C-alpha cells in the first residue's frame, strides 16, 4: 500500500509538470487581459514537434528550441487575432484548437516511423544509485529534468510578476489598459509579449507531456483537455503563479490517481476513473473560485481609440 502511495505521488508530480509549464505562460497572458484558449491546441503541436525533433534530429536541445519556435509562431497568431484584430478570444482559441487537432493528426500520419519507435525522452539528472533511496528516491531523484524545471518555474514567474517592472506593467495593462496607455506603456506591445509567452510555454508543456516519459505522440487529441484544465487552474489559483501551480498539482494527482487505481482495483469501471480529472476540475471551479481576484479587463478586447 505504501509503495502504491509513493508511486502515485511520483506520478502526480510527473503528470503535473506539463500543466505547470503551460500555466507559466497562461498566467501572464490572462493577467494582461487576454485569455489564450488556444493552449490546448498549441500543446498538441508541442507534443508532436517534441517527438518529431527528438526522433529525427536526435537532439533534445533542438527539440526544445523548435518547440519554442513553433509555440512563438502560434502565440503570435493568437495575439494578432485577439489583440490587433480584437477578435473574440473564445472563438479564436477554439478555432486554433480545431486547426491544431487536425494539423497534428495530419502531420503525424505522414511520420510513420515515430509510430513504432520511441523518441528519446528527457533524462534524469541524478545518478541511478540515488533512485533507490526510500521515498525521496523515486519521488524526486528519479524525475526527469523537465519535472524539476517545471517546479522551479512558478517561483520565477512569481518573481517576474510581482518584483519586476515588466510584471508590474503586465498587471497594470490587464487591470487598467487606459491608464497604462496614458502612463506611456505600449498596451498592445505588452499583450503581444504575454500572449506569445503563453504560446511558447503551452508548446513546451506539450513537449513535456510527450517527452517526459512516453516518447510517443498519439493522434486524436493527446492533450485531452489539459489546456482547458490549465485555464481552470488559473481561475482557481487566482492568477497567482505559485497557487496556480499548486492547483495544477492537484489536477496532476487526480490524473495519476485514476491510472494507479485502475491497476489495483477492478471494482470501479475504469471509465469512471478516467472521468476523475475532469470532475475534479469542475468541482474545483465550483467551490474554490474567488471572484475578487479576476483581472479587471479579463477577456475583453482593448481598442486604443476607445476613450
Amino acid at each position, binding site marked *: 500500500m505504501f509503495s502504491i502511495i509513493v508511486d502515485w505521488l511520483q506520478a502526480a508530480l510527473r503528470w503535473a509538470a506539463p500543466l505547470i509549464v503551460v500555466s507559466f505562460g497562461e498566467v501572464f497572458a490572462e493577467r494582461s487581459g487576454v485569455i489564450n484558449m488556444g493552449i490546448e491546441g498549441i500543446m498538441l503541436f508541442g507534443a508532436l514537434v517534441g517527438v518529431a525533433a527528438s526522433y529525427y534530429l536526435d537532439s533534445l536541445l533542438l527539440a526544445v528550441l523548435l518547440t519554442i519556435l513553433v509555440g512563438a509562431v502560434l502565440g503570435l497568431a493568437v495575439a494578432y487575432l485577439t489583440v490587433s484584430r480584437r477578435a473574440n478570444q473564445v472563438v479564436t482559441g477554439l478555432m486554433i484548437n480545431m486547426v491544431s487537432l*487536425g494539423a497534428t493528426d495530419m502531420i503525424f500520419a505522414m511520420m510513420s516511423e515515430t509510430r513504432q519507435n520511441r523518441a528519446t525522452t528527457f533524462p534524469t539528472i541524478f545518478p541511478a544509485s540515488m533512485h533507490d533511496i526510500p521515498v525521496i528516491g523515486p519521488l524526486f531523484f528519479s524525475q526527469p529534468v523537465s519535472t524539476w524545471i517545471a517546479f522551479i518555474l512558478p517561483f520565477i514567474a512569481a518573481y517576474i510578476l510581482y518584483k519586476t517592472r515588466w510584471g508590474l506593467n503586465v498587471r497594470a495593462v490587464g487591470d487598467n489598459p487606459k491608464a497604462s496607455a496614458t502612463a506611456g506603456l505600449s498596451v498592445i506591445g505588452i499583450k503581444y509579449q504575454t500572449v506569445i509567452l503563453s504560446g511558447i510555454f503551452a508548446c513546451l508543456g506539450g513537449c513535456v507531456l510527450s517527452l517526459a516519459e512516453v516518447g510517443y505522440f498519439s493522434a486524436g487529441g493527446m492533450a485531452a483537455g489539459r489546456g482547458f484544465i490549465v485555464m481552470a487552474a488559473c481561475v482557481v489559483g487566482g492568477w497567482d503563479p505559485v497557487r496556480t501551480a499548486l492547483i495544477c498539482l492537484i489536477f496532476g494527482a487526480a490524473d495519476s490517481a485514476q491510472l494507479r487505481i485502475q491497476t489495483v482495483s477492478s471494482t470501479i469501471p475504469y471509465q469512471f476513473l478516467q472521468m476523475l480529472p475532469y470532475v475534479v476540475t469542475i468541482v474545483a471551479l465550483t467551490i474554490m473560485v474567488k471572484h475578487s481576484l479576476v483581472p479587471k479587463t479579463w477577456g475583453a478586447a482593448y481598442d486604443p481609440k476607445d476613450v
Partner: protein
Amino acid sequence: MNASGKSKTIRLPLLGDMAVSFGRTLLGILMGLVASGILIAISGANPFTAYGALLRGALGSRYAISNVLVRASPLLLGGIGVALGIKSGLWNIGMEGYMYLGAIGASVVGVFDLGLPSFIHIPLCFLFAMAFAAVWGAIPGYLKAYRGVNEVTCTIMLSYVAIYLTNWVVSAFPPIAEIGAFYPMSKKFADSALLPILMRGSSLHAGPFIGVLLCLIFYFILNYTPFGYQTKLLGSNPHAAHYAGVDARKQMVKIMVLGAIIGGFSGAIEVMGLNRRVYMDFVTNVGYESVAVALLAGGNPIGVIASALFFAALKAGGATMSIETGVSSSMNSIIIALCMLFVIGVGVADGRRQQKIVDNSKDDESESKELETAKGEV
C-alpha cells in the same frame, strides 16, 4: 430605455454594413480555402485535383447531395444550439457531450423491442434523449448562473466526462452494451426505433429536414416572442435586461438546457437514423464544428442553415477528396477551422461593436458587476 435603444442601433447594422460584413465573410472563406490549398500542396497532392474531388464529392450526384444532407444534420442542430447561446452571450460549446447523453438516453429505450409501433417508440426515444441531455445541460447552466463558473471550461470538461460515460455504457453496461463485440458498441436499435430512410440506396434520414425546421422555428422564437426578446436583450445588454425585469440567471439556465436538449435530440437522430447503434465515439469534433457553424452564421438561425450546409458539403466532399487524392482525412477540420480563423481575422468591425457594449456596462454599479462576472468573457 436609453440603453436598450442604443443596443438596438448597434445590433441592426445598416444595409451597407451588412454588405461589407457579408463580403468580408466571403473573403475570409476564400482566404481559408487558399491557405488550405497550400497545405494540401505541401502534403503532396495537387490542390486543384483535390478541390475538384471535393466538389464532386459534395455535389456530384444525388447520392453525394444526400450524403451532404446527412452530415448537415448534427451541424444544423449543433449550430442552432450554440447560436442560441451566442445570442444570449453564453458559450454553450458542450454539444459533443449533449449528443453522447442523447444517444445514451435514446438507447435506454431504443435497443429493446418494447412491442410499440414506430410512431410511439421513436418519440419515446427522443423524449429520453432530450431528458438525459437536459439534465446534463442543467449542470453547466446552474454552475454558470448561480456559481459564476466559466461555462466554456465547464462544458468542455463535461463533454469529456460524457465521452467516458458513453464508453462505459456501450462496453460494460450489460442491458445496452453488445458484450464481446470487436469494438465498444451498444446493441442494435429495435426496428421500431429506427428512423426511416427517405431515399433508397442512401442513408438519408429526416434529421437534416428536422434541423432546418428547427432553425426556422428558432428564427421565429428569437424575433417574435418575449422569450426570444429576453434572450437577445440578455446577450446584447445585460443591464438593460436587468432593468427590463429579465431574470438573467433563470434565462441563462433555460438557454443552456435548451441548447442541451437540441444537442441530445441531435445525438438521438445520429444513432437512430445513421449508425443504428451507439458506438464508443460516434461523433468527434462536433463541439468545435458547431461553434464554427454558429459563428459563420453570426448567431442567426437562418444563417445557421446556410453555414451548416456549407460545412457539411466541405466534410462530405473532404471524405471523397481524401479517398481519391490521399490527403489526410483530418484536412476537413483544418479547412473549416482555417476558414473561420480568416473570417474572424478580416471581420473586425462587428467584434468592436459588441465590445463597446460590454465596456459601457462596466461603469455601472455593483449589481451589474455581479452580472458581469456571471456573464464571463464575451
